[in-house]
């Protein structure tokens, strides 16, 4: 009987120890790896955002699609796209067409990296002509990026103007 009690004690102790190791430690670690403003743009996450912008502006559909998480959620112009394929097969073309002839000035852009998560905030001015109409507008963009096996992927985009 004594041996059984000792055995149970050891198993419970091992279980508690493994719980602490697996769950308690990450909460106590506040490993914040944050990059501000221009520093954030130089990070891998920042480069993904910049290259995604370039791909959209240059009409490179496959390249742009490659930066998006398969399950990306995109808010744009009062509608929502709930996958990269949805966006790539529908409104990505329209966005590329719209931006192709416009001048795009980046007014503000910052990327902040927190471990395997990052977010990007940017403001741009669009000027030029689209389908014969003058364009002079300011656009806002928020993004969430997650570091996955294949690198950083964009998981959420909110565009507004």
């Amino acid at each position, binding site marked *: 009987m004594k041996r059984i009690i000792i055995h149970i004690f050891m198993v419970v102790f091992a279980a508690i120890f493994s719980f602490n190791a697996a769950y308690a430690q990450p909460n106590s670690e506040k490993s914040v790896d944050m990059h501000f403003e221009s520093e954030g743009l130089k990070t891998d996450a920042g480069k993904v955002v910049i290259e995604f912008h370039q791909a959209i502006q240059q009409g490179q559909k496959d390249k742009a699609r490659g930066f998006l998480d398969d399950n990306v959620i995109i808010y744009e112009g*009062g509608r929502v796209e709930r996958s990269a394929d949805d966006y790539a097969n529908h409104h990505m073309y329209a966005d590329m067409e719209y931006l192709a002839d416009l001048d795009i000035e980046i007014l503000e852009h910052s990327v902040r990296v927190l471990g395997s998560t990052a977010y990007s*905030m940017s403001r741009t001015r669009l000027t030029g002509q689209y389908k014969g109409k003058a364009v002079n507008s300011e656009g*806002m963009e928020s993004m969430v990026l997650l570091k996955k096996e294949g690198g950083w992927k964009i998981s959420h985009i909110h565009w507004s103007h």
Partner: protein
Amino acid sequence: MYKFITAILVLIMSFSSIAHDEKDHSNKDREAIIDIISSIKYGWENGDSLPFRRSFLDFDGARYIEGGGQNRGLDSLVNHHVVPEKDALAYLKLDFSEVEIHFEGEDKSFAWAIADTSVKGKVNKNGRTFDKTGFQTFLFRKIDDMWKVVHTHSSSRNKK
């Protein structure tokens, strides 16, 4: 044999306990974020700066985007929008629905929440009413065991 069965039972109970704790932890975080979103709704509707002061992380570079413009920092948001709108509007009704919350990072200390929005109001100056629908993005960081808003983005259009 008896030892083996005991060990298996204890292990099952331990894993069950861990899974339960994790679920409780996750629910607690989810509830905390829902509470913050509810307090933001209250703050906008009542021109009350307190929910924003309490739940937003005030830091250099903070940006809160709404209606095609942005507020640089918490003071700008509160002093130029939240509080003045109390006097500028006869009423403001803001609703968040279809709220989705995603926890990210190894220690789940980052979260992003998205929601459909409905905003109705009446402007005191000219009696004009507005009725819009749109989308909302909230970004959160967990700091010292408290969730803080680090970025918001709302966009809306006139309801069709």
